[in-house]
């Protein structure tokens, strides 16, 4: 049942993002609506799958790489769907939905690690830690997409060379503003996620800080966003630099989230020992 749901969700995400690619070429509102609806259906099935999985293991199913990626893809899609309702920036879907597909497919392709059940996961702290961090990451992923849109548009206006995207992309100020909103939503979430992580670590391990690669990278990422936020508020950094930093920041997020999990070994994988 769960597997079927996941297949349907993957299919929906692919279809939705193909829809958004068509929307990029053809400016018809109906294409956007259909794509949004398909993504929505996909998110429903995906959420169902995660729920079933979590019920069967007895805690939030985010412990293996595969589950974590899948859960992140779901949070990301839901975040997009909600933010889209609020922003009404339809073209955003064309830049964001392919990312969701990438995460989803990655989670489907990764080998299923067999992780024995452990009491460590059965804590509200884990749920809080993972949810806040993933939400932060999802918001930063949106900022990443918006940053790319900004750079595309800025380049055209600066170089006075107007291509196809000029008329399709919104104004620079709007994109920059969205970038900012993402930052002020994402940063507190990320901070909360890290704090809960350290707090929980101090319960189950002797020290909250264990020089684990994941911890180090997470802190680096946090600093990148802290700098961005600070410069924005204090100096008024905006525009191109802010867009670049949003892109750079999200690369750091990906490194922390995926790179460390897949390549370096740390106690996030040691958990189970």
């Amino acid at each position, binding site marked *: 049942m769960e597997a079927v749901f996941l297949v349907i969700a993957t299919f929906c995400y692919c279809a939705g993002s193909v829809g958004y690619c068509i929307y990029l070429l053809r400016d018809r509102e109906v294409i956007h609506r259909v794509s949004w609806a398909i993504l929505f259906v996909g998110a429903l099935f995906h959420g169902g799958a995660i729920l079933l999985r979590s019920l069967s293991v007895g805690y939030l199913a985010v412990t293996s790489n595969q589950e974590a990626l899948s859960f992140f893809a779901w949070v990301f899609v839901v975040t997009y769907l909600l933010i889209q309702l609020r922003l009404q920036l339809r073209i955003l879907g064309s830049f964001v939905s392919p990312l969701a597909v990438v995460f989803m497919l990655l989670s489907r392709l990764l080998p299923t690690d067999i992780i024995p059940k452990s009491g460590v996961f059965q804590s509200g702290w884990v749920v809080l830690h993972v949810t806040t961090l993933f939400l932060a990451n999802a918001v930063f992923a949106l900022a990443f997409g918006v940053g790319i849109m900004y750079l595309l*548009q800025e380049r055209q*206006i*600066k170089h*006075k060379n*107007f291509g196809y995207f*000029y008329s399709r992309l*919104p*104004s*620079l*100020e*709007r994109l920059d503003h969205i970038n900012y909103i993402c930052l002020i939503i994402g940063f507190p979430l990320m901070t909360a996620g890290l704090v809960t992580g350290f707090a929980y670590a101090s319960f189950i391990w002797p020290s909250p800080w264990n020089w684990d690669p994941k911890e180090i990278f997470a802190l680096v990422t946090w600093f990148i966003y802290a700098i961005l936020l600070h410069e924005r508020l204090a*100096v*008024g*950094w*905006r*525009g*191109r*630099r802010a867009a670049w930093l949003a892109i750079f920041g999200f690369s750091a997020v990906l490194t922390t989230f995926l790179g460390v999990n897949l390549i370096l070994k740390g106690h996030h994988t040691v958990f189970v020992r």
Partner: protein
Amino acid sequence: MCHIVLLGMNHKTAPVEIREQLALSCQQHVSPLHLLPHLPHVDEVFFLSTCNRVEFLFTCQDRRIAIQEVKALLQTHLGNLSGNLLDLHLYHYENLDAVRHLFRVSSSLDSMVVGEPQILGQIKAAYREATECHTVRVILNRLLHKTFSVAKRVRSETMIGSHAVSISYAAVELARKIFGELRDKRVLLVGAGEMAELAAEHFLAQGVRHMTVTNRTPERAFELARRFRADTMPFEHLVDGIRTMDIILTSTGSLEPILRYHDVKSRMRERRNRPLFFIDIAVPRDVEAKINDIDNVYVYDIDDLQGIIELNREDRKREAEKAEYIISEEIMKFQNWLTTLDVVPTIIAMREKAENIRLNELQRTFSQLPELSDKERQAIEVLTGAIVKKLLHDPIVFLKKKAKRESKQSFVDYTQQLFNLSDGNGMDS
């Protein structure tokens, strides 16, 4: 035979001074519409005056005399202008050409800024005035309503309104791509020439509320500021404007750049890097080109803007062709209606004659048969009415159908002879 004549001048045929003079004197003195009684050979009249055009549309039986009358009227309004000079600036269209011109004007194909949306509103306001003065009747009423629907069709079926078509329009569109909403943005006009004026109009149309004008000679700045309800600031403080302004449009005659790289660079931190957009339509340029290298600052000079317009030229041409096609189609429809108008007096005469006969005969019959009850009288009235109506139905349909033919006049003549109508031309509506 009724003629539709249009006399007018626009930005292409007359310099701004003459247009201004005419428009102004028409506003200050009596509206030309009130002068209809002084134009004995003009039947209906419609008058449109905007900053870019003055148009007189009227119908008449004898166009030669009517045109002379209208020209004489213009002459008195313009005062010192000699007749030759007036003829030089006036264009003159008749019948379907006049209709086409009116359709093109309302669809904004004839505007200085092709596709700009205000003109339709201006025509509607002028029409309202004309209806209040009762100077438009059957033909112009129909024509103007048609004009509104043509303009709407062109707007909805072509993209004529959505392409950047003039330098100032292109500049405003760019500003919208940088800033999005322009409502709360501050615009500084440096120099107060005609281009600055045009741009100011576009910015106002986009809802810009904070405009400031600065000029080397402050009088001109005051004048422009008054017209656009803008502020002024001393020309010497120009560089400080960089701190607070968002859009700076320069059009001075200065030979040296008036804004330099360091002026802007050093003030960007103070404005917290908020985007700054320079529109430099002066030649030689007022803003150093290097300023474009600063982050969040965009400089467009007149060539850059021209480039954008060139880019849209092909699209615009295609859309304009579509619009012209729609207009031709609508002219045909109007023409059809207009031609049936020629047979209308005959049809009315036919109906009147039949009705007269019917009433006379009824009176005779009723006086001979006084014993009829009211109900019976009513029945006889209905009966005779139906007979007359049915008898006339086929001739009327026949005439209307033939009205579209070249030879319609002979059909009208035959009908008049056949029914012995004394004067079918006595059209009086």
